[in-house]
């Protein structure tokens, strides 16, 4: 047999959920094997079983033909299995090197030989072209770099089989291209990769074979060369998914949001927005394209009042909202789907029903004279759960227990339901499966058609092209281009985003 890994008939239960039911997946040496499935289908669970974080109730794992019991990650490491998790496993206050050597530190006289460690890490990074700074602190480096640190971690431990759980969800297009290169060089070194992703294009481009699971059960394993995106998506979701939104052309109305010469500093007093200008009209979707870290989050947080603006003005329908408290801003007609759903979007320890009331709990009918009306809150929650197809055992379930996709749907339900004049959607589909993405895109377009202004921030060029009526490119704290999607190309956009081409925008 030339399978490096075989997971046979794996079953894994959680209280009340069968996450994996009789799933089989076999990984050939030197291949990139995609694992595909809806949100909550059980992909991460299956890989966590392989990595020794969970023990399966049933089934068998073989590594290079030999039956093994992976009782904890140590065992997996010893077997040459490494995993890059969906949520990074990095200790933020530590440096890159400290994170990488953690658990198998080089020593000299009982002390960590940090010099040697840094040299080793740097050498390894150079070997695979990872361009990682061994001494940087995790909290100071970009998400893409963090991911490469995760990969380095596994390489440092001599990984032969690398599991990547949704590595591209958080990456910019450039970073995705770099990651693909890295994966190729890993394969060239004789390693094997299991790749979890929701991006079918990536599978088509990079993978050799693909295993599809649905609702915890294995569906099929296919050769990527012999299949199509459509086949994969319908296998996964159980129905046809349309990838192009069938939207009608926009008919923009009056200006809803007007941002002029906005200057915002970050916590280290560095200018993150340097006099940014922007306009969004009713009935249009403005997509902000740009590489992460060029001021997108500052822009969103400044508009929503989460951080302070230094200079410039922000007007919503002719009312100035600059530096108002967040509540005043939301009340003046802005809704916001935040980029970081765990940090901002949800109170994970509240029931999902109360999370759905997070923006309106203090208003009638949800409360009266500061007394909450739980009946109304939960009636509304049930309504939203039904309308937005949020998969949860009940409205009383803690938000923490929901799968990422369903958490995201809950936030969208809450924000869209408030019928805002302006809806800010920051990375609204990050980590979602194709079915959920389709749903959310349609929702955004639907809102647009109701005459709302929508500001969409996304790192996904596909999403930007597909959904936006107008594209603004952000670079280094400024809008450097204002384009129509049908009048530009990915290449041109890429150049603009990289700052190598500048176009004057905004009339003034």
């Amino acid at each position, binding site marked *: 047999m030339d399978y490096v890994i075989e997971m046979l008939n794996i079953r894994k239960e959680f209280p009340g959920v069968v996450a994996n039911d009789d799933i089989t997946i076999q990984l050939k040496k030197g291949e990139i094997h995609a694992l595909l499935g809806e949100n909550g289908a059980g992909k991460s669970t299956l890989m966590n079983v392989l990595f020794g974080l969970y023990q399966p109730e049933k089934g068998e794992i073989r590594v290079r033909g030999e039956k093994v019991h992976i009782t904890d990650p140590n065992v997996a490491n010893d077997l040459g299995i490494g995993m890059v998790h969906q949520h990074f496993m990095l200790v933020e206050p530590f440096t890159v090197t400290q994170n990488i050597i953690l658990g198998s530190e080089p020593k000299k006289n009982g002390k960590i030989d940090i010099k040697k460690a840094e040299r080793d890490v740097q050498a390894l990074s150079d070997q695979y072209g990872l361009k990682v700074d061994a001494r940087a602190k995790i909290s100071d480096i970009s998400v893409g770099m963090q991911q490469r640190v995760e990969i380095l971690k596994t390489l440092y431990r001599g990984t032969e089989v690398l599991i990547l759980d949704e590595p591209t969800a958080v990456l910019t297009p450039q970073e995705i291209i770099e990651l693909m290169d890295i994966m190729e060089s890993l394969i060239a070194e004789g390693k094997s990769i299991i790749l979890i992703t929701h991006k079918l294009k990536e599978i088509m481009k990079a993978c050799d074979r693909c295993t599809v699971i649905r609702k915890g059960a294995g569906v099929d394993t296919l050769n990527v060369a012999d299949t199509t995106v459509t086949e994969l998506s319908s296998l996964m979701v159980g129905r046809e998914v349309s990838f192009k939104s069938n939207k009608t052309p926009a008919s923009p109305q009056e200006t809803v949001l007007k941002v002029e010469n906005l200057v915002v500093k970050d916590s280290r007093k560095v200018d993150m927005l340097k006099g940014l200008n922007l306009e969004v009209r009713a009935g249009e979707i403005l997509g902000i394209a740009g590489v992460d870290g060029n001021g997108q989050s500052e822009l969103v947080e400044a508009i929503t009042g*989460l951080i302070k603006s230094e200079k410039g003005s922000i007007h919503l329908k002719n009312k100035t909202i600059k530096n108002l408290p967040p509540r005043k801003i*939301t009340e003046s007609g802005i809704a916001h789907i935040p980029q970081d759903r765990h940090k901002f979007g*949800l*109170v994970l320890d509240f029931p999902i029903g109360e999370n759905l009331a*997070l923006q309106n709990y203090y208003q009638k009918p949800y*409360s009266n004279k500061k007394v909450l009306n739980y009946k109304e809150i939960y009636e509304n929650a049930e309504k939203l759960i039904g309308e937005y197809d949020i998969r949860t055992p009940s409205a009383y379930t803690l938000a923490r227990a929901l799968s990422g996709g369903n958490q995201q749907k809950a936030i969208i339900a809450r924000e869209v339901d408030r019928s805002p004049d302006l809806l800010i959607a920051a990375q609204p589909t990050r980590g979602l499966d194709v079915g959920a993405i389709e749903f959310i895109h349609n929702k955004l377009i639907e809102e647009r058609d109701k005459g709302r202004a929508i500001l969409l921030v996304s790192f996904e060029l596909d999403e930007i092209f597909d959904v936006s009526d107008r594209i603004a490119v952000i670079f280094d704290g400024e809008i450097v281009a204002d384009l129509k999607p049908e009048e530009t190309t990915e290449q041109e956009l890429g150049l603009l985003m990289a700052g190598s081409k500048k176009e004057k925008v905004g009339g003034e």
Partner: protein
Amino acid sequence: MTSNKMFNILVPLISIFIGLFAGAIIMLVFGYNPIEGYVALWHGAFGDLYFIGETIRQATPYILTGLAVAFAFRAGLFNIGAEGQVFVGWIAAVWIGTTMDAPMYIHLPVAIIVAAVAGALWGFIPGLLKARLGVHEVIVTIMLNYVALYSSNAIVRTVLSNNEDRTENVAPSASLASDWLQELTYFSRMHYGILIALFAAVIMWFIIERTTIGYELKSVGYNKHASKYAGMSVKRNIILAMVISGAFAGLAGSMEGLGTFQHMTTQSGFTNLGFDGIAVALLGANTALGVVLAALLFGALKVGALNMPTESGVPNELVDIIIALIIFSVASSYIIRLLILRFKKEGK
């Protein structure tokens, strides 16, 4: 749902049992008769109406300090300062009680409210420092405990008396004492404060579970960022939580000043009402009802313990050990749940 409810009742009961059982073993090991020991404990706590009255009297401040700690906990804050807030509430209540002259329907409420306000102020300081400067509330409240202890002793001696060890008794118009309750309980010091304590528990329940204020406090306690995003003022809520928490503890002080003692003496050290309040809050799972029940348990154990050496020769420190074991067991409810589940499975 229902099984959760079952656990919520079963776990504390089993914990109490574990504590008492372990206490019995300790008594046996050291040559005491555990049955006599526990009979003495029971007599000391519930032997007759007098002791029941005293148990309730003891539980009264425990309820309030328990609520104080629990309330802060719900907002993600740890108030180790209930101890100091009790002192300032006590002195404030006695201050009003001894110096003001007014009919009861004004005097008593004013004394109680001023005590709550004083406690609230003592909670406001750490709340403000936390909200504005990020100073950890645990250190500030620990420090303020000492400040409260020494200051209230100085106030007793220099302001509320002429260099004496105690203040005057509060005027009858500011007293919570009740002839009726005392006669009913053979002159225990049970006083109307228990009603205030129970009312405070209802208030706490109402604020936390039924109002937007409680919703915000819990939200801030769980996730500051999301709360800010949702338009809540994190700073305001931190301060508010500490203020309300302090007010509950201040009320506990007024129970001592206007109810149990009717005056304040210089204290040779901490009363432990605040520290015990931490245990009461946690035993009561930081819920209002839980706190009331835990306070009653605590009151009974503490008052009953006094009878153990007299009636059975068992040193009353044993009760501290038992309390510790009960707290451990409650804290380890996870393992108890696991055992119950296993037990049930095997039973089937």
